[in-house]
């Protein structure tokens, strides 16, 4: 296959010679007369607070969709291991701690987060452009959940310096989420369709 498509030169000549249609003279006025309010939604709000990168789709060094999807799987695997280990050994560490409802649910949250990230990785891998959008919003939900969960944990833990643990937990979760989003930004998402 030749990029210049020389074998279709005659056809291309006809295409390029086709006359251009002229838009109505008053179309600019018509557009200007119908301009609605601009949608200052979540995206513009995020851009204003410096998180516009979340929705950008350009990068100098691109990675493949498979690699990006793999990042989701590996992060999910990390949570899965944490979940399995904590389900198995939490009671051995502290029965008292595991009886606190919210704390006791943490291993299952970790497994749930793992499954969520697996799903996002899978969607990203198989579902093209809409998968990219779903993964972005899905990761945003993940970050929100991690931060909210940390705040809830803080309210149950009455241990000195617990705040440091909570901040560390929230920050590391959010950091992983941001890294995943940046992976999407670096992805050659044009191959997604």
């Amino acid at each position, binding site marked *: 296959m030749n990029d210049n498509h020389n074998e279709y030169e005659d*056809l*291309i000549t006809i*295409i390029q010679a*086709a006359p*251009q249609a002229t*838009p109505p003279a008053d179309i600019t006025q018509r*557009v*200007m007369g119908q*301009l609605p309010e601009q949608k200052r939604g979540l995206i513009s709000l995020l851009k204003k607070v410096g998180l516009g990168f979340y929705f950008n789709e350009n990068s100098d060094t691109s990675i493949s969709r498979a690699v990006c999807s793999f990042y989701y799987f590996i992060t999910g695997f990390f949570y899965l291991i944490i979940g399995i280990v904590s389900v198995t050994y939490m009671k051995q560490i502290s029965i008292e701690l595991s009886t606190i409802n919210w704390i006791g649910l943490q291993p299952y949250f970790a497994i749930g987060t793992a499954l969520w990230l697996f799903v996002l990785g899978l969607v990203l891998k198989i579902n093209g452009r809409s998968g990219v959008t779903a993964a972005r919003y899905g990761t945003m939900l993940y970050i929100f959940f991690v931060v909210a969960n940390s705040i809830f944990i803080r309210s149950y833990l009455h241990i000195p310096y617990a705040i440091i643990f909570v901040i560390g937990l929230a920050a590391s979760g959010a950091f992983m989420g941001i890294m995943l989003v940046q992976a999407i930004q670096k992805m050659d998402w044009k*191959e997604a369709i």
Partner: protein
Amino acid sequence: MDQKTDSEIVARILEGDVQAYAQLVDAYKSPIYNLAFRMTASLSDAEDLTQDIFIRAYQKLYQFNRGKKYFTWLYTIGINLIRNHLKKKSKDALTHTMDHFSTESQRTGKENREGDLLSEDSIKRLDENMQKLPVDMREAIILKYYQDMTFEEVAAVTSDSVSAVKMRVYRGLEKLKALMDK
């Protein structure tokens, strides 16, 4: 209009100078109108779509990344709206619109670059056969040859890889050629 100028106009609009948007509409109304017309083969649909595209672009202007080319972003919005329109619209009245186009292009179109070498009939047949192509192939050919874009620009507009666009253009030309030779 160059990228810097576009970006400056966008900045002015976002700062509240709504009337500056007229400059962007003026600059891009012709290619957008032609894109819509070539895709739909209907002048009235092209008019409506051109207005819708510019209005949608205005609404979403906050999402525009000023480091990128405005026209690529505008075309992407345009292509998506046109695709949606084509999905909704049935494919009737093709002959009518094509006849209408022939008359209309004689009245308003710019001069045929190849002069008398290319017959009006061959251009009319080309337009009719273009409408028989699948939408993705049609848009790739239109962007590449009618709109004179590079493969990279077409890829950016259609959210495809460059290799996919090249393949689509090639397949489209192949199919178009077969239709023209019938």
